[in-house]
């Protein structure tokens, strides 16, 4: 026995049957004869390409790669970036004034107690006034005279500074860079044993005591090296470059 049941809610196949008069065949719409293809009938759906089906994930993939690389590269900013000169903030010719500005964290406040545990902006205007090869080194402030070692030449670098009073000058590096990129005098201690290279020899602490002052620093280099730059920094990452003519 067959019972014809008209569903209360049109099923997917009867979806076109709304508005059909009662009694008419449910698959036929008004104005359609059996065998006719309805004009709005969708063509059999084509399988979309792999790229279209995965478009969302393809867009997300590079973002995920960047996020993963960023998350696992914390050593770059935690260890590498803060130590060493990585960011050239100014570049001028020898004889011109360069502005070096950079922040540092003062953990102790040794010279200026109120700066302890704060981030301090250090701003220094520096001018390299001369770079000259010398035949001998002057007597150091402490200790025995230092002869220029065999197989080395010595340069005298003169720098004029201007900064606010009590600007921290510790960790100062005055280095000569050769055409090949060799960095001479990179250490914060110079050849005469001074570990306060940006302060005058009679300075008592590591902060500036005058609005303007001049320093002289000595650097050993290879005899054949062609010096092309002077770089000045305080441990980094910011530094300034002075190009030699």
């Amino acid at each position, binding site marked *: 026995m067959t019972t014809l049941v008209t569903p209360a809610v049109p099923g997917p196949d009867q979806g076109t049957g709304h508005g059909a008069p009662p009694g008419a065949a449910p698959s036929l719409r008004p104005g359609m004869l059996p065998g006719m293809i309805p004009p709005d009938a969708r063509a059999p759906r084509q399988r979309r390409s792999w790229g279209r*089906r995965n478009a969302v994930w393809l867009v997300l993939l590079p973002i995920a790669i960047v996020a993963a690389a960023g998350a696992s590269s914390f050593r770059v900013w935690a260890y590498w970036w803060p130590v060493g000169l990585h960011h050239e903030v100014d570049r001028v010719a020898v004889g011109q004034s360069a502005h070096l500005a950079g922040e540092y964290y003062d953990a102790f406040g040794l010279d200026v107690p109120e700066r302890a545990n704060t981030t301090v902006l250090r701003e220094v205007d520096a001018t390299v006034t001369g770079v000259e090869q010398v035949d001998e080194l002057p007597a150091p402030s402490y200790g025995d005279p230092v002869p220029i*070692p*065999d*197989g*080395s*030449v010595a340069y005298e670098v003169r720098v004029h500074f201007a900064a606010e009073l009590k600007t921290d000058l510790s960790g100062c590096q005055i280095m000569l860079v*050769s055409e*090949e*990129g*060799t*960095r*001479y*005098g*990179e*250490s914060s201690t110079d050849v005469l044993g001074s570990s306060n290279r940006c302060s005058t020899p009679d300075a008592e602490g590591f902060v500036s005591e005058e609005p303007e002052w001049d320093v002289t620093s000595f*650097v*050993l*280099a*290879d*005899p*054949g*090296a062609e010096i092309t730059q002077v770089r000045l920094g305080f441990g980094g990452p910011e530094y300034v470059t002075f190009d030699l003519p």
Partner: protein
Amino acid sequence: MRHGRRRITWKGTALVVGAVTAGCALVTYVPQERNVDTPFVVEGEVGETLDLTYADLTVTEVRVADTLTSFSEAAAAGGTFIVVDATWRATQGETIFSGAEITDRQGRRFWPSQRGGCSISASAQPGYAWRTTYCFDVPREALEGATVRLARGDQTEEYAGQRRDAVAVVDLDITASEADELWEAEETVSPEEPGYAPASAGGGEG
């Protein structure tokens, strides 16, 4: 958006299993340690200047001592001290040379001693040659055929600091008969303080 369950096909299964197998094979059979970790070893002899890219290194002299004396201390060896004088000339920037080790023929490794005023590392900048003395307390069997390995990277954690970096390995040129002789000799050495090296010992310039 597609609905419903996806069919599991032979093709898809083979693709996944194949990819996993290929990945495992790659990790297992490609010698990663060799490609990723191996230092660039520069071999040489005593007196030869070796180019390590970041520095020129010369092992200038090798001595043996029972006793090391310094300003503040006289140190007696448990075995005997191999005293290695070396000269570093940095070529790129300020460099700390942390690696120093003697390897014997059995592959045993001896790290430097700080006793008697000896150095266990050195630090130098370009522009000059810097002399350093390393001392290693070794047993008798370690003398013959020993080599000294010097580098800027340190040798802890299975040479982790020397991965993909230049390392000097210098043969100390001690033969079996010399080893006996050196072991019997009673020598006292006063290691020099680290300092600027004479040009003749400093290797090439720049």
